[in-house]
């Protein structure tokens, strides 16, 4: 557990980077520090491993003031990941990851085999071990950085904007990977970012900082979206707050509407007979959706023809009923988006195998939201 007690950092020229911070980071979860430039989030993070020392107040790590430990020794027990990874260019990837174990006295061979395990854990191919950082892509370098931080199996991991320097697709991938890792390893992670969406996506608890080092709100992401503490937090969170909040409500037990299913290759006349409300979803042999056909499309075709994949209208996003394998499937937001993005009035619901199990309408989702409010699931 990490405790900030009345922590202040004031610089000689008068700037206050952190202003009287009181905050407790619970064990075993991802706590995100988020805010605009100059809000003190990075400064606060760096005070945990004594890269910066506070001007006033103290920081306790598992009950012990960090100032009582010798800096180098303290840091060996804390993982540290920074924005551009900061890999040692003169060492191979493997030796980079093995750095802290060697530093703490492990033999080189033991350290290297541990490093190999970690490279596998972060999803890097074994062939990269003998390469040098300059030969890796940005995303790969970040993963090595994470592996290096985990090498000595520290209970605490500090991450300073680790995914900010890569492109959005790679970033998404790295975020998924972090969530996966965390579910396996259950570390105490303190994560700094300037991106509120990243904070909401990753954080179990999110601390929003204001410029000048003041803590504005410290809450769960759902509470943050539902009840921002003030004007600043609300505008920092941005638009579509309500819609994004739906992402935290599970859509279990939501009623599915019946939807017409037409296997691909069905003759047009048969297909026309099956249409419900003028629409049907075309599926493959496994029942997976390929697209929609409508009354208009079918009437323009020859009755003797069969429904082929060229005739389809593309569908919207899919709502996964079973949220297996992680991700944001199975939430009300997911269901609503499926309904809204569909060309027909129904969104397509699929099971874990991807086969169509039914349709979902926007009304049903909003009804489920009302029910959630009534039952107290939505934070007020």
């Amino acid at each position, binding site marked *: 557990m990490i405790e900030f007690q009345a922590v202040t950092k004031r610089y000689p020229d008068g700037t206050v980077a952190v202003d009287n911070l009181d905050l407790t980071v619970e064990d075993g979860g991802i706590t995100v520090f988020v805010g605009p430039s100059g809000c003190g989030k990075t400064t606060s993070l760096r005070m945990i491993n004594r890269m910066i020392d506070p001007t006033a107040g103290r920081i306790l790590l598992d009950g012990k003031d960090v100032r009582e430990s010798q800096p*180098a020794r*303290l*840091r060996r027990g804390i993982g*540290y990941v920074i*924005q551009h*990874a*900061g890999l040692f*260019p003169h060492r191979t990837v493997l030796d980079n990851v093995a750095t*802290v174990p060697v*530093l703490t006295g492990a033999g080189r061979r033991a350290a290297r085999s541990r490093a190999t395990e970690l490279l596998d854990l972060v999803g890097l191919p074994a062939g990269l071990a003998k390469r040098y950082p300059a030969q890796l892509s940005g995303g790969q370098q970040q993963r090595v950085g994470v592996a290096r931080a985990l090498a000595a199996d520290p209970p605490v991991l500090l991450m300073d904007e680790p995914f900010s320097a890569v492109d959005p697709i790679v970033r998404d991938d790295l975020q998924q990977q972090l969530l996966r890792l965390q579910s396996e390893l259950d570390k105490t992670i303190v994560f700094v970012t300037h991106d509120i969406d990243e904070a909401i996506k990753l954080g179990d608890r999110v601390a929003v900082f204001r410029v000048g080092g003041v803590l504005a709100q410290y809450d769960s992401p759902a509470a943050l979206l539902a009840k921002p503490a003030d004007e600043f937090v609300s505008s920092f969170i941005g638009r579509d707050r309500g819609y994004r909040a739906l992402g935290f409500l599970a859509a279990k037990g939501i009623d599915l509407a019946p939807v017409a299913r037409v296997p691909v290759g069905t003759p047009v006349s048969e297909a026309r007979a099956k249409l419900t409300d003028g629409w049907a979803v075309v599926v493959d042999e496994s029942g997976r959706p390929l697209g929609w056909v409508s009354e208009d499309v079918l009437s323009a075709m020859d009755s003797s023809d069969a429904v082929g994949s060229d005739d389809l209208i593309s569908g919207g996003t899919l709502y996964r009923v079973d949220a297996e394998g992680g991700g944001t499937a199975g939430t009300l937001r997911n269901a609503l988006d499926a309904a809204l993005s569909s060309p027909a009035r129904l969104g397509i619901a699929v099971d874990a195998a991807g086969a169509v199990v039914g349709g979902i309408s926007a009304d049903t989702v909003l009804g489920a939201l009302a029910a959630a409010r009534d039952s107290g699931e939505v934070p007020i």
Partner: protein
Amino acid sequence: MDQGPGRDGAPVNVFELVWAWLTDPENWQKNFRDLGIPARILEHLTYTGLAIVFAVMIAVPIGIYVGHTGRGGFLVVGVANWFRALPELGLVILLVLAMGVALALQALTIVLVALAIPPLLAGTYSGLRNVDPEVVDAARGMGMRERDIVWRVEVPIALPLMLGGLRTATLQVIATASIAAYMGLGGLGRYVIDGQRFGTLEGYTMMAGGAVLIAALAIVVELTLAGVQRLVVSPGLRNRKFSRRETRVRTKPVEKTEVAIS
């Protein structure tokens, strides 16, 4: 002067003469005129080696300290650039005369060390300054002690520029050691000075021969050091351009104190 009248009046090819001088086995062993080429080479290398060793012992620690802490960098850059202006001949003459002929070797060494320090200092300093600050931050954040950060991270990364400084310094010293003969010392410069005293074609042949030897020695030493650099520098550091960072934006421009060759 590749054709000139020889002693018997027939035109002579000076290239051939020089080649003959260089391949004459008598010149390669001690004879009545001179100690022989191998001995001169050894003298030259000794002057060079001695000076470089002392210069490294002085310049590298200072360069590492200033490069790691960043204090005094301005001084280093300034000094390194201005030293290039000092005339080698003048320094050699001045010091040998001032200290007396008996201490000629010591005087020469002082001059050589003084000339070798600026490039070594500049190379070491800029090598350490050019280490990515994020790498140093990561190293510190991982729990490395300051001295480990310097020796295990900063110096290995700075090695290419440090060795560049060493190469420049060595060349400078070899060149100045060639002049040492003017003040009565040995080395390959001996052939240039002695040959000049004869004043004839035969004399010029000796001068040119000496010049070829000096050039060859310099090239061989440079190639050897380049080879050492290849061996010693981590493969992960090859092909790095220091003046271009396309992947990140730096707020401070990268400092280069010398226009480095190769």
